[in-house]
């Protein structure tokens, strides 16, 4: 990251400056998983394989696709994914 600005921490500095990632869920049972194809080559094959594994495990999935791989997903698509699912997988590709 090219640093453009430095701010001073307004907190008591009791937690790391790098924000922790969300912990993975202890179980996917009963959850719906969004499978997001970002639109790059062969991403759909990866999604197909994942979908099969989830299906065998009895986990519900929903598929989504970005309109173009060159831009971030539109807000309404992200809101739709968040409203309909508890977890999401974004397909890598190439």
């Amino acid at each position, binding site marked *: *990251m*090219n*640093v*453009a*600005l*430095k*701010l*001073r*921490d*307004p*907190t*008591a*500095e*009791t937690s790391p*400056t790098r*924000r922790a990632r969300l912990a993975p869920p202890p179980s996917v049972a009963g959850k719906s998983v969004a499978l997001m194809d970002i639109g790059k080559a062969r991403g759909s094959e990866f999604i197909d394989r994942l979908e099969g594994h989830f299906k065998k495990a009895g986990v519900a999935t929903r598929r989504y696709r970005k309109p173009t791989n060159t831009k971030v997903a539109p807000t309404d698509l992200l809101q739709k994914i968040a409203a309909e699912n508890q977890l999401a997988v974004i397909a890598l590709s190439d």
Partner: protein
Amino acid sequence: MPDGYPSDGFVIVAKHDCPTCTLVEPVMQSLDRAGPLAVVTQDDPSFPSGVGTVIDDHDLQRSFQLKVETVPTLIRFKGGREVERTVGWDRAEWTRLAGAAAAGDGLPAWQPGCGSKSVEPGVHETLVARYGDTGLKARTIAVGEWDDPIEACFERGWSDGLPVVPPTDERILRMLGGTERRPDEIVGNIPPNLAPCTVEKVAINAVMAGCKPEYMPVVLGVLEAALDPLFVLHGLLCTTHFSGPLVIINGPAAGAIGMNSGVNALGQGNRANATIGRALQLIVRNVGGGLPGGMDRATLGNPGKYTFCFAEDESDPDWEPLAQRRGIPAGKSAVTLFHGEGVNGFVDQKSRTPEELVRSLAMGLFGVGHPKLCLAGNAVLVLAPEHYKIFKDCGWNRRRIEDELYKALKRPGSELIRGAQGIAEGMPPSFADRMVDKFQPDGLLIVRAGGEAGLFSAIIGGWPGQSVRDECQAVTHEIR
């Protein structure tokens, strides 16, 4: 020795915009002919003309490092070290330092210089942040060149939900300039985590809240009052009740920083009112770790938990201001902190006598918390000018209004006990045979504020924690 300076010779710091600098341009040319000279020019690299070494100092780094406050400044170097300097134009001084070449024949003997650009308001702190030692101890958080710093603050959870001003070093240094207290002084431990809070952390959060440096003494006074054990800030934070800190400022500090005690005093639009109250809330959030849904367990909260701060109208010499009523000497600035749940508008456009208005106000005040609950929480009564005029015209002062209201706020316990009037809520049965006060002694705080038009007042209910009078009260502290 910075590049470009002669190790044995002279440096002159100047700016073209300074009449004294342009006056001595021939002297600079003369000095250049006589020996080693470098001119550090702040605003125009083509100034002065006829000088061999002109150093462009538009970023003011050299002026800052040379600690220049006035231009022109003539500095003599010997062996790579500064040995003498003089400021402005003074023929005797310049010739003493630089000899006959600095005589400036034909010029007046003396002319004062101008302020250096490096000490213009707000500039010095920026230069300290860029080129100096800020002395700040808080850890730095890097923001990428493509990232929006305001969004970065949101993402880190530093905001109350509204945008905050990104706390950069120069802003923090300017804020610290508003107080004489040391940045590393610990003001107190902020609940709920009881984290030590330095003056520097106060300044950082005051920057984020949008405060001006001159608000710092008030912000520090507010925080110290909030940390008075009698105020029970921890309990106020974690309550399920509506209340949050209400800040009332009295005394000359309120006027000095332009606080609003008039039209819309409890509303939006005044920077000092808005940001001082917000700074307290951000300190509790960021330093203390008091987050809604975390230790802040309010069922509903109230909009005043963003900020709730105003000044009392002290324009009437007949009126005893709240802070004096609570023991602060006249002429001193003070903060009163109350556990306020929000503004309840009180409308009475028919009362014309003090007696009528007191009965009417009492009826409104009975509603605080619940009409059948007494001694369970206090209140602030904000008298707006038209209501106050009804009292004043009949010679009623603060003490008389308080006394009459306390009398009017007594009711038979039989009407208040649980089940009475067909309402389950109410006082314990043991109150049935006595007259019951609505509020604790000193539990009704009366303050004047508001615009000239409107037969209104405002009732700000308190917090049930105030029912334990010895342990929890409004507090009033002098602002140092």
